[in-house]
């Protein structure tokens, strides 16, 4: 007993360490500069002010699909990479950051297909002309109608152009840096260069002055020429000089001055940016994912070995994961000043959170380990899905006018995503039930009944939220477009979920299905929810040219396949021996194929 208490305490400490892991480690990057402080510098891009760290992570995610890059035998963080891309572009040009795996695009550049999928800007530089003309030809085709090659060439060119813009945030390519641009600022040629930078620069680093809002370096140089002093320009020039020279102390001093300048100009935006940096460093969703996996593994182990000892350990890990997940959601809500679900990415985070909470509640009610497994698994899977959805860029992008309604985001969107959580939890329990009946030697009918009653309860919950969410969506549409229901794919998807749960519940009330039918239909419900959540968004894409090369589409197809497999498992008689029997060339015999509910 005492040993167990120690084990739980030890787990709690480990979980805390994992949760806080983002704040350990060296702040110093290459050239002896404080990378974390640099990451806190504010920049305006995509309509909002964010820390450079966010910008660097999103840009690298878009370009490389990862938040880090391997260079010179070590791993660079996104901010370290951005430091080089901004201040030492010649060096950054040699980093292999562009994934090119389309054989036709490689063929266009006369490159053979190889195991090395990453290419540096230097390697692609000579082909930019060809890529650009192909990309602009492809761009004339509607995105949904593009061939795989057209889509791939547009994608590659977009990433190259993004990188090109990042390089031109501070200076003209091949120039002598920002201090040189500053020295020329008052000449005719300098003004032309400033104009070019103003057009290319990817983000705005100069805080607002009395005359005008956030400016990029080019706009700053023009304003300086027109007589408005821009103290930020000198500071960025100083940063570049110090960084190139490896003078960490002077770099850090310039960064501190720049931060003070920003705080004086726009304290609210800088406060939010500082909070966002902490959020980025804490990586709540990543660390939450780790904790969920750990909880899941311990739970699995607990089935085979010392359940009384291991289950509390799993609970601690699960609780820590859920706590981080919740903290991350709250943080995002505060940062955006909006309800937690604003796009596909945040819907994945939220659906997973809802499912994890539901699983935890079930565990509290039934204490059979099942709810905990569902909670940990759904938390983990949803965060993985969210992680992949984040590769499109900023996950806190601004809301288009038609969606800009916190009231409806908070009601319709939240309700309907909770409904999704419900159908996934029901499906997950059913999946567990299906696997269990083939894995266990003897089935305890009481446990089966308990699982069925959990599933049934969750389906009722899901119906309530799916229905309310769907109708609230109709009401929102009525408010903004004057029509309640338009049979639009997303609306139809929501309706499909509602209809399906209604069928499940009526079939059960009528006695047409029992335990097994309920489980099988709940598994199918997961597939229907996945279709209405992601599938309808791909309608144009999935059914046309982009087809199976689209990663999201293949992931969805794989999920559908998994559901089909689970459906088969749930319908097959317990401990199905088809394979073995077939191998022995004997007629199929079901050992326990007596009717069961």
């Amino acid at each position, binding site marked *: 007993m005492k040993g167990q208490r120690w084990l739980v305490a030890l787990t709690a400490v480990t979980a805390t360490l994992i949760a806080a892991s983002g704040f350990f480690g060296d702040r110093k990057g290459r050239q002896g500069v404080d990378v974390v402080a640099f990451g806190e510098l504010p920049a305006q891009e995509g309509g909002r002010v964010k820390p450079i760290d966010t910008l660097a992570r999103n840009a690298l995610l878009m370009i490389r699909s990862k938040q880090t890059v391997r260079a010179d035998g070590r791993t660079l963080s996104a901010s370290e990479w951005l430091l080089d891309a901004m201040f030492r572009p010649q060096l950054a040009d040699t980093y292999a950051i562009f994934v090119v795996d389309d054989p036709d695009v490689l063929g266009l550049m006369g490159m053979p297909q190889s195991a090395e999928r990453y290419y540096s800007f230097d390697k692609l530089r000579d082909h930019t002309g060809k890529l650009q003309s192909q990309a602009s030809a492809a761009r004339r085709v509607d995105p949904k109608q593009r061939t795989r090659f057209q889509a791939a060439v547009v994608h590659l060119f977009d990433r190259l152009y993004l990188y090109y813009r990042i390089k031109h945030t501070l200076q003209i390519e091949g120039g002598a840096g920002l201090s040189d641009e500053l020295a020329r600022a008052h000449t005719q040629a300098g003004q032309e260069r400033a104009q070019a930078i103003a057009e290319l620069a990817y983000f705005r680093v100069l805080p607002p002055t009395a005359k005008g809002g956030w400016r990029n370096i080019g706009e700053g140089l023009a304003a300086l020429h027109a007589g408005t002093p821009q103290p930020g320009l000198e500071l960025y020039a100083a940063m570049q000089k110090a960084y190139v020279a490896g003078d960490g102390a002077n770099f850090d001093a310039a960064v501190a001055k720049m931060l003070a300048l920003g705080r004086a100009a726009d304290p609210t935006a800088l406060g939010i940016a500082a909070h966002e940096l902490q959020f980025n460093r804490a990586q709540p969703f990543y660390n939450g994912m780790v904790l969920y996996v750990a909880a899941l593994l311990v739970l699995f182990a607990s089935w085979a070995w010392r359940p009384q000892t291991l289950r509390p350990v799993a609970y601690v890990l699960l609780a820590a994961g859920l706590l981080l997940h919740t903290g991350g959601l709250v943080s995002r809500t505060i940062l955006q000043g909006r309800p937690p679900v604003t796009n596909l990415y945040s819907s994945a985070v939220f659906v997973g959170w809802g499912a994890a909470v539901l699983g935890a509640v079930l565990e509290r009610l039934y204490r059979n380990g099942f709810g905990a497994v569902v909670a940990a698994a759904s938390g983990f899977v949803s965060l993985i899905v969210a992680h992949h959805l984040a590769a499109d860029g900023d996950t806190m992008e*601004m809301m288009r006018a038609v969606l800009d309604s916190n009231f409806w985001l908070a009601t319709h969107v939240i309700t309907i995503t909770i409904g999704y959580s419900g159908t996934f939890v029901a499906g997950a329990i059913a999946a567990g039930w299906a696997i269990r009946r083939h894995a266990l030697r003897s089935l305890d009918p009481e446990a089966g009944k308990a699982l069925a009653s959990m599933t049934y309860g969750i389906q009722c919950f899901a119906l309530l939220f799916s229905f309310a969410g769907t109708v609230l969506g109709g009401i929102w549409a009525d408010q*903004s477009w004057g029509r309640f229901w338009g049979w639009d794919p997303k609306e139809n998807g929501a309706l499909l979920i509602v209809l399906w749960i209604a069928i499940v519940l009526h079939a059960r009330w009528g006695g047409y299905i029992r335990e097994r039918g309920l489980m099988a239909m709940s598994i199918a419900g997961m597939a229907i929810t996945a279709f209405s959540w992601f599938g309808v968004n791909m309608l144009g894409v999935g059914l046309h040219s982009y087809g199976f090369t689209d990663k999201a589409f293949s992931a969805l197809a794989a999920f559908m396949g998994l559901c089909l497999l689970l459906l088969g498992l749930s319908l097959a008689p317990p401990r199905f021996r088809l394979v073995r029997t077939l191998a022995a060339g004997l007629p199929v015999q079901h050992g326990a194929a007596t009717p069961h509910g």
Partner: protein
Amino acid sequence: MNDQANKHWGTALLDALTSLKLAIVLLTLLMVLVLACTLAQVDLGTHGAVERYMRSWLVWWRPDGASWSIPVLPGGAPVGGLLILNLSVAQIRRLQLTWRKSGLWLLHIGLVLLVAGEFVSAMLQVDARLTFEEGHSANFVERTREYELAVVDTTDAAYDDEYGVPQSLLLAGGSIAIAKTPLQLKVVAYMRNSELRNRTDKDPKSLATAGVGPEIAVQQLPPVTADDAQDTPSALIDVHADGVSKGVFLVSAGISAQQGFSHAGRHYRIDLRLRREYLPYSLTLKDFSHDVYPGTDIPKNFSSLVRLVHPGSSEDRTVLISMNQPLRFEGRTFYQSSFGKNDTLSVLQVVQNPGWLMPYVSCTLVTLGLIVHFSFSLGRLQRRRVRAAAAAVGAT
């Protein structure tokens, strides 16, 4: 004997009609239809897919290249109708009026209302548009997909007398007398959709003899179904005044030039245009604004600042119509829909739907019903658990 058999037969039908099995079959059919309607939108557009699957009696299937087609599924209309019938009759026949069943009553009544509301909308909802530029006023709305032939008496400079001939009359053809005028219009031809271009020497001679028609070649096209496409109807109208021919006019939604004629000292204009409805009040666009997020082209908001003047009720006030913030006034709702001309022109969607409140009521009823019903179920489950726990304690 005969009576007995009839009764038996009637009960059997009623049983079948109110059975839970039928409800499940219908719900499944509805799912199939909704799924098919969703997938078909890729090719048919929303409007086309909805017409084919949801607003139809039967869904027809035509094999590739065949000239015949066979019905493969019942359409949305019979499935939805039967579902409502099944639901209402079963509810009345099978369920008792008890507190325990109150949730089911609430939610099923709500569902009937929801579908009834959709039915009311489908039959009675009128969609129109109001387009105005900054500084200009409008006192009429235009129907989105309906056209009319307008004859306008422009003699008096201070006001116009307008006479509208609806599309249905034009489609029927024949001769149309315009009341209170000496005018008689003969429809020579009416095309729901057409293409116009300048006539060349190679084209056959135009049937039009007056106005700009003789210079234009017109070709009939099939009506469009895509969501963002609009028909360009055209008509050839033989105009008579007091029995005297004024010529055959080509009128079309594709012709912007004004065409007209004079008779007995009065001047008339003739035009084929979107059907207009005049309002007893006027809206003036004071300002249209369209903001984007800094450094992007993501729209932040659109809004029209409008002055509303109603002489009848001596109302004169300013309203801001923006996304998610429509103006509801005298049975019509005005939504910010579109804009143009460098942000100086605003387009409002105008909807008249007497059933607009029904979804709100039914949503509340159903949600409430679900909560009540599941609360009862949860209570029952809890009691059972407590009993089971007590039994377990007793056993040990």
